[in-house]
């Protein structure tokens, strides 16, 4: 029973779900319900992006484009078809997945700096396309008039119902991603990050896997972008800019996306909450923000959870339910095996 639960959602994940479930009991008092919603939307984006960065080791720098495309696809579908929520969200996710699949054809065979540069080039290209096709996207003004509508009798226009609407997506995406990273596919992409040449030597067509993981991460970016367009009642070009694309990389790095499955979520929380707090304290919050992130990258290159991990034990990167169960049976674990308490990744 325990292992079945662990297979779906290990304790830290349940704790995270519980925390986000209860947040609306306190957030509205501070007027932060919307911020909580944004945190979960960007967590979906960052968790999906971390498949690429943290798990496969592919630093894509133009991923904001796919987040933005998701928003526009949601808006266009809602405005020009039957409206509603379901179809626009499906269109945002599936449509962005297709955009990602097409781009991935070009980038999946590139490595290192060439991979990164090409993703930047595509990101910038999509950014410009927003203004070229401004009859569809609204150009500078954005695609406004997107409607959150209602679900099960709750008007999503209100922030708390909308929070729980996004929460459901956040939980679903987290569960799906946890399955993915622990699946054979998850093993293969991790293998590619650690040694692509060895992965090829044991028979994997690594370019196909990189194509698949890029495509998948774009699907999650599209879903997050669609939710973001609902949140803001409009789709805008700004999340597609290069600097916004850099933010998701920072979120993953700060939280510890290389060290832990939950790194991106923590990174998003730190990033967005800090921005909010700092901007109320000082007009020069961007400066403080920059210095802070430089310090993180310099002194904790593995991110916050990477440091936590290192302090707790000399451990490997990840864990699976099966591995945990097997280890629990070991009478005397060898000196350097992972400590039994380790669960997350």
């Amino acid at each position, binding site marked *: 029973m325990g292992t079945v639960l662990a*297979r779906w959602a290990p304790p830290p994940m349940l704790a995270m779900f519980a925390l986000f479930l209860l947040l609306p009991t306190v957030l509205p008092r501070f007027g932060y319900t919307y911020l909580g919603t944004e945190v979960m939307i960007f967590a979906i984006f960052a968790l999906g992006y971390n498949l690429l960065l943290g798990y496969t080791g592919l630093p894509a720098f133009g991923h904001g484009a796919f987040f933005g495309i998701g928003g526009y696809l949601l808006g266009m579908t809602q405005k020009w078809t039957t409206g509603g929520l379901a179809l626009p969200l499906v269109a945002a996710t599936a449509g962005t997945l297709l955009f990602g699949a097409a781009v991935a054809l070009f980038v999946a065979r590139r490595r290192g700096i060439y991979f990164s540069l090409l993703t930047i080039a595509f990101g910038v290209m999509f950014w410009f396309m927003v203004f070229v096709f401004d009859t569809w996207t609204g150009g500078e003004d954005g695609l406004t008039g997107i409607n959150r509508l209602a679900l099960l009798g709750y008007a999503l226009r209100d922030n708390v119902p909308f929070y729980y609407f996004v929460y459901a997506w956040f939980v679903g995406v987290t569960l799906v991603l946890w*399955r*993915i990273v*622990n*699946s*054979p*596919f*998850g*093993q*293969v992409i*991790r*293998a590619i990050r*650690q*040694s692509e*040449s*060895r*992965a*090829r*030597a*044991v*028979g*994997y*067509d*690594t370019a196909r*896997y990189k194509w*698949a993981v890029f495509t*998948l991460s774009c699907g999650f970016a599209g879903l997050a972008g669609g939710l973001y367009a609902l949140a803001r009642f409009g789709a805008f070009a700004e999340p597609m800019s290069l600097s916004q694309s850099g933010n998701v990389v920072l979120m993953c790095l700060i939280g510890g996306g290389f060290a832990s499955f939950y790194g991106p979520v923590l990174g998003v929380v730190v990033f967005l909450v800090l921005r909010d707090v700092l901007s109320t304290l000082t007009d020069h919050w961007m400066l403080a923000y920059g210095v802070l992130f430089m310090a993180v990258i310099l002194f904790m290159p593995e991110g916050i959870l990477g440091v936590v991990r290192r302090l707790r034990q*000399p*451990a*490997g*990167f*990840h864990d*699976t*339910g*099966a*591995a945990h169960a*097997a*280890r629990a049976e*070991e009478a005397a*674990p*060898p000196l*350097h*095996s*992972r400590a039994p308490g380790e669960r997350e990744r």
Partner: protein
Amino acid sequence: MTDTPPGSPGSTPVLETRGLRKAFGGHVVLDGVDLSFEPGGLSALIGPNGAGKTTCFNLLTGFLAADGGEIRFKGQDVTRLPPHRRARLGICRSFQILNLFDDDTVLENVRVAVPSMRARGFDCWTPAGAVSAAEDRAARIVRLIGLGGRERVAARYLSYGQRRLLEIGLALAGEPELLLLDEPTSGLGMRPMETLRELVQQLSARLTIVVIEHDMDFVLTLSHHVTVLHRGRVIAEGPPAAIRDHPEVREAYLGRLGAPAPREARG
């Protein structure tokens, strides 16, 4: 195939090359190399540093493209196949410089290399540990390479000798018909060396193994066939005893082979 002794003439070679050529810029590394490895047993590929041995392995496994010549595996032309296709045919290699999945456990390292896992590589849903065919086979290989009991240890925390053994384990996991080992004993102390010798000897009874090796004791006692590469050409080949006394080989090695009989040389 009947039970012909290893290397007996007349059997179809597992691997054969004709006029294999490779140059880096103007520097010719392999200059028309003909190789032929009969099924079964252990063949050694030796030669001084820079002779082109590792380049040769990289051509055989597809990590480098040949500039000329042809590579046949069990009669099939594989010259243009990418590395993963050759691995799937059963040409599996180890690396001279340790090339492991360091963050993953010993079991996970081997498991990801097992064909039954590879067949499900795009499965995004099943927990990897639940692919029982792969799990079982990986566990058997881990025991075979003498790392039983260390399954849950991350590869980076193994001793150097154990990492060398895991390097072979990863190649073995692919169910090779031809196993290419690039300096498997490099840097090993006495004890792990013994483990490795036993392992290789045991494997050579049922696989075709080609090994690049500098340890002459290893080469002369374990192999049935030696090919000597020097400046991109095969300068001699034959049974180990003949190679040891081959004048050109002695000259190429400048005493390394000409030294007193290797057993004594090792002390």
